[in-house]
């Protein structure tokens, strides 16, 4: 297949990054292709640090050949032979028997795919932190500019894709792509990872997968930490964004329980680099630690902290605490935070 043809196919299929940011893949490919650097890398991100999200694991477990094929197609497109497969340790330990032989197989075809085993963390999947980790530096985010597409690792451009994106690439190349995506469902009767239509509404996904609850509920969509909260009614019209997950919470979930989950996660996962995320998340956790489960939530004190995390954090990690907290307050409690 001609390289140009693949690029057009990616564009026509509307392939976007499935790490959560949904950036059109063909634009990234073209940008890097046009650079004159003699060396370029393709990197697959299999860090998957969001709470409860398992779609990348599922894809690797079932379709690892396609993921590697996607990497190979990207490498061919960029005329490079070297890439990194960046995977969290827990996943690697379970999937070693699938990954190692593929690495070997591609080696025989003269593609060098280095497996980089990451200590599992939320920040580890963040672009800059991931690139720093590969370079042996501190696992902390980088400045937005220069973009990894220009200066990724070891002074070379990097084409970085999530597992699912590379799987999609392979499907597009073989004309099997059907505008679907993978959705992790948690809190239902049949938890698991499902292939669903990319523009499917949340409630519909729950029904089709026999997960629609028979109790009152709300959902968190697009990540168990950073995903947005929707009521049962809103789930009828909301589409599955971000990394595609849906977590069901019974309406009996207390404010304390929900917020503790979020605050504790961010407090634990902040990389510690910048003030708002490091100190803000700790103060949020501490606000709840001092309460018993039925106390009023101190929204007045929470508000300025999440605002500074949103506006002032160095990278997306700190900023991403805002959607779940704000949407929970607004959609479930009817208050603006």
């Amino acid at each position, binding site marked *: 297949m001609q390289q140009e043809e693949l690029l057009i196919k990616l564009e026509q299929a509307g392939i976007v990054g499935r790490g959560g940011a949904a950036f059109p893949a063909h634009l990234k490919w073209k940008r890097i292709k046009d650079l004159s650097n003699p060396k370029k890398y393709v990197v697959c991100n299999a860090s998957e640090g969001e709470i409860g999200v398992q779609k990348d694991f599922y894809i690797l477990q079932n379709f690892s050949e396609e993921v590697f094929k996607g990497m190979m197609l990207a490498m061919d497109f960029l005329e490079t032979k070297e890439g990194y497969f960046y995977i969290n340790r827990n996943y690697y330990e379970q999937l070693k028997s699938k990954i190692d032989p593929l690495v070997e197989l591609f080696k025989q075809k003269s593609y060098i795919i280095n497996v980089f085993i990451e200590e599992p*963390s939320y*920040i580890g999947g963040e672009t800059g932190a991931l690139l720093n980790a590969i370079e042996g530096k501190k696992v902390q985010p980088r*400045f937005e500019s220069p973009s990894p597409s220009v200066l990724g690792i070891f002074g070379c451009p990097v084409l970085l894709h999530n597992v699912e994106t590379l799987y999609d690439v392979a499907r597009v190349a073989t004309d099997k792509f059907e505008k679907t995506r993978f959705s992790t469902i948690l809190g239902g009767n049949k938890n698991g990872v499902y292939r669903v239509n990319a523009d499917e509404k949340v409630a519909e996904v729950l029904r089709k997968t026999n997960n629609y609850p028979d109790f009152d509920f709300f959902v968190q969509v697009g990540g168990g930490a950073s995903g947005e909260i929707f009521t049962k009614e809103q789930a009828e019209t909301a589409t599955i964004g971000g990394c595609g997950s849906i977590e069901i919470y019974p309406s009996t979930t207390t404010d304390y329980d929900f917020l503790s989950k979020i605050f504790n996660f961010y*407090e*634990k*996962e*902040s*990389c*510690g*680099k*910048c*003030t*708002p995320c*490091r*100190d*803000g*998340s*700790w*103060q949020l956790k*501490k606000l709840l630690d001092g309460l018993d489960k039925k106390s009023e939530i101190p929204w007045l004190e929470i508000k*300025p*902290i999440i*605002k*500074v995390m949103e*506006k*002032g*954090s*160095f990278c997306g990690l700190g900023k991403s605490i805002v959607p779940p907290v704000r949407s929970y307050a607004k959609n479930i409690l009817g208050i603006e935070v």
Partner: protein
Amino acid sequence: MSKKVTIYIDEKPYQAEEGQSVLQLALANKLDIPHLCYHEDLKIEANCRLCLVEHENKIVTSCNLKASEGMKISTKNKELVEMRQENLKLLLASHSKNCPKCKKNLPCPAFGLMQKYGVTSDEYQRKMLDLAIHKMVGAAELDPNLCVRCGRCVNSCADIGINFLKLEGTSSDNHLTYNENPKVDCIYCGQCTVHCPVNAIREISHLEQVEAALADPDKILIAQMAPSVRASIGEEFGQEAGLNLEKKMFTALRQLGFEKIFDVNMGADITTVVEAKELGDRLRKKFAGEKTVLPMFTSCCPGWVKFLEFYYPDFIDHLTTARSPHIHSGGAYKTWWAEKTGTDPSKIIMVSIMPCTSKKYESEMEKLTFDFQGHKLKPVDYVLTTREMAALLKKNKIDLPNLSDSEADREGTYSGAGAIYGASGGVMESALRSAAYLLTGKELPKIDLEEVRGMKGIKRATIKIGDKEVKVAVVATARNARTVLEEIKHKKADYDYIEFMACPGGCIGGGGQPLTGTFAIIKKRIAGLYSIDAKKTVRRAHENKIVQEFFNYLADKPSLASQILYTSYSAKNKFE
């Protein structure tokens, strides 16, 4: 020439160099944008998130925002002010409560920001980590519970070439600590302390001891000020860098209650004579084809000496055996001056005011003590940094810039050579002025050795002394020292004499200097030192009459001379 661009800050146009950050431009134009982790000489971290501005409807940090043509920046809207204030509250949670300096009401940059932005530091409680204060022997200490993780100390330590400090751990456990690698150790240069905006890394204070001694009627207090202090202490009082305030300092020291005001510059003249003689001896042997150890290294910087003793102990023989200036003069005052004035030397408290933290470590060295009139004496009892001295003056409400001038006491008289000791290259230049005379009986044709001056990290020159050529190098920072030592190790260079200093620019950029210091400021201070030298009638150490008097005194006291003029070195372990 770099291109100029016009950007608009709060609707007013400003000319920026292309590539300059918005924060740099704002600071250059005296616009108010708070910042803690930014330092113009260090890597940009953008950790503190205080320097927020609005650009294209987004709130971004200005330290890493490059100026580009037509850019519009807002620094003042309500939301920004709120964000900065909230950030500052988070960053400085419990700061005043935990700061030993604040208990003494001494200002630090964090304190200034708190006042300016209406933050008390009691808004939030800080997560206290179960971490002890670590002492870098007698020089400095780090307190992880005060640290704001800005990374300035870590980056300055890396720039110096040591990498002793590091930030470790994630989330709120992220904390300042040190490198446990047994092959990495602190050299006490104190560059961390001069880059810390919150006093989390600070000199080990001798203020309380000095204040107690000043209040003790039984003690005789002598102050001696290092060359660099006079050209920098004004910055603590809002004066221009490089302004020579020595005559006002002499007055201030008297007002504080010091009985005698001498000068480390006189000590520098002693060091020059001792060191020039040793250099002359080594060179004479070389020229005669005899065995000797060359290149000779200077030893007046305790940070450098610790560096050599720890990282390159095989080179110890290269160090001059001359003691350092304030140790020389301290020894001189407690013996020669005490004897001639009938003063009980055991009652003398020598206080050095130094631009340096490693001088504190040096002052406590057992090997430098000497026996005199039945007493075992330390050449110097206490060392105050320039910052501590400024704090002491402020505490005593002494308004330094507005004092009248006075002179040091007679035994503090110094030559121009002593004055330039504070600048990188100054020790070399002083020693060569005297060594040339000692070797040839004639003075150098040109007294100003321009080729060894300036801020460059490694300066190399060949100086003609009589019909012989002497190859010299002047090195500042451990990073550059390593480069030159490796050259020597691998026989890629054949120097005769090398001056080494731990800090950029030499003592004038030392770890005990005001926090205002930047490379640009250090350059101004250096200019101040050279202008002192240029104005002196006596510019060679060996011509200093006081120094001659001191050596005459020692002429028939070889045992005392060997005790107070020379020292020795040994390989050092970590934390030694």
